[in-house]
């Protein structure tokens, strides 16, 4: 049956992705007609919960959308609110360097913790031929222990700066509740130095596995900080701010988001689907970031990227694991640079007064651009909130990619095909629980 011309494949619960979802493939006369990712985790109504709250509350509330990337939610929300209230804008009140440094440093911790989780615990088992990290640990104990130690180094940044590794409590509109001392940050340096070396070794290791062939040329979208906004010594790989750029030539401020991107509801999924206004699909995430900003990596890391096979744009999604490893090295390197440059702010936060209107903010979550928009009334109460997480933006592009991928692998039986599809999906590190959602595979071959 499974080798007949018409078939249907269903994966009813995707393993090793965050959240719950399914995948459905329709095949007729040996041609893949449709690939649907079905997201059945219920929508989480965060946007509605934010209405009626004050402009100071989103960092604490939106942190709860994700246990892996809470800082992304906090800082995208803060960017939106501060830009509306005239903080850090060209004609507004400047944000002290120390606060900017702490935010980026905190975010480095989140990239490390999230990328290491994905590379070693969710994705590496695919390449090394294991069902999961637990089975892999039996043969590769050192690898798993190294991964856990790397994650811990990231979590420590979150704890020292954010006050808690999951859902940090120290982040606020205007800055922080308490700014750590230089000494507190410097205590982390030895472990971060170890982490940078370990991450370099890890990048070489993951670059050495065999990657299935797949070459795709989607539209990539990411942030890119303006050159003249960069503090001395920074190379400006995008993390906590930037303009919105694509490889199709878009280069606009975040406030122009609604003119270029929108979300639509599709029947097979409870997550909204992101599209460009012209109807095209696009991809956000490590590959997009890297392809659009490789020139913003410090020379030493650019050399490493070239050495591990990423001298050019990365167009094989299976190689995204290598990009994540390069970004992990960068996050350690950048954390060390930031600690060295740290100038403890005189006050941990600047005062932010509410302004009525609509503000837009975005940051590079580990999985790609995370966009927030808030509308405030005169009293600073939220009347409308929009949150567009990376996976919902990627979903239509993932479906398109999978269609090609399944077509090329139709000769496989259903079990083998399912295994391959799950791997292909994990390339994108979809994280389905973020207010949007993810996997089960069904393939119908008719």
């Amino acid at each position, binding site marked *: 049956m499974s080798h007949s011309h018409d078939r249907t494949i269903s994966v009813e619960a995707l393993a090793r992705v965050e959240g719950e979802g399914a995948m459905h493939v329709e095949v007729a006369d040996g041609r893949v007609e449709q690939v649907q990712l079905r997201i059945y985790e219920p929508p989480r109504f965060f946007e509605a919960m934010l209405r009626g709250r004050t402009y100071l509350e989103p960092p*604490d509330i939106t942190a709860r959308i994700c246990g892996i990337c809470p800082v992304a939610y906090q800082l995208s929300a803060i960017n939106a609110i501060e830009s509306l209230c005239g903080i850090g804008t060209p004609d507004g009140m400047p944000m002290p360097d120390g606060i900017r440094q702490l935010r980026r440093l905190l975010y480095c911790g989140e990239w490390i913790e999230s990328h290491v989780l994905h590379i070693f615990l969710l994705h590496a088992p695919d390449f090394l031929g294991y069902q999961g990290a637990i089975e892999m640990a039996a043969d590769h104990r050192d690898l798993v222990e190294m991964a856990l130690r790397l994650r811990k180094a990231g979590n420590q940044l979150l704890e020292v700066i954010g*006050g808690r590794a999951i859902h940090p*409590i120290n982040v606020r509109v205007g800055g922080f509740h308490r700014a750590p001392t230089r000494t507190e940050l410097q205590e982390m340096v030895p472990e971060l130095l170890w982490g940078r070396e370990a991450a370099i070794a890890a990048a070489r290791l993951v670059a050495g596995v065999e990657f299935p062939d797949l070459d795709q040329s989607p539209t990539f979208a990411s942030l890119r900080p303006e050159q003249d906004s960069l503090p001395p010594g920074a190379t400006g790989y995008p993390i906590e701010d930037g303009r919105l750029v694509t490889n199709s030539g878009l280069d606009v401020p975040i406030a122009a988001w609604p003119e270029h991107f929108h979300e639509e509801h599709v029947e097979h999924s409870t997550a909204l689907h992101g599209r460009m206004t012209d109807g095209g699909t696009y991809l956000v995430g490590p590959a997009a970031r890297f392809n659009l900003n490789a020139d913003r990596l410090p020379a030493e890391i650019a050399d490493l990227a070239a050495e591990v096979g990423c001298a050019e744009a990365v167009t094989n999604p299976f190689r995204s694991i290598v990009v994540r490893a390069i970004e992990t090295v960068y996050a350690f390197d950048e954390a060390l640079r930031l600690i060295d440059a740290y100038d403890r702010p005189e006050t*941990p936060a600047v005062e932010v007064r509410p302004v009525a209107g609509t503000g837009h903010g975005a940051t590079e979550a580990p999985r790609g651009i995370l966009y927030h928009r808030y509308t405030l009334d005169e009293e600073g109460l939220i009347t409308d909130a929009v949150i567009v997480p990376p996976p919902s933006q990627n979903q239509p592009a993932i479906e398109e990619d999978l269609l090609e991928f399944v077509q090329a692998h139709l000769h496989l039986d259903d079990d083998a095909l399912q295994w391959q599809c799950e791997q292909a999906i994990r390339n994108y590190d979809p994280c389905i629980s973020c207010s949007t959602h993810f996997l089960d595979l069904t393939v119908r071959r008719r």
Partner: protein
Amino acid sequence: MCVECKLRGNLCVAGAHGTPCLGPVTQAGCNARCPAFDRGCYGCFGPAESPNAASLAAWLEEELAMEHPDLVRLFRSFNADAPAFRRESRRHEPEEVAT
């Protein structure tokens, strides 16, 4: 949770800085994390056993001049439906919407 604050040697953010804090009515266990970072507790561990939320609210109203809508929001967050917090948030709601 105030006990954890004392044990940790935190300065009381409510007494010293006038920062609203739900510590007196919140379940201990986090080692008074928020006060250690100079902010008030927002009650994420949920209500303590037999909390006196009404007395805390009265203190916040009198000493820190907190207004009703802010009290509603304070008690109506991560544990909005825990009985002690639900009751307290409702008490500060305007009549029309308090159903």
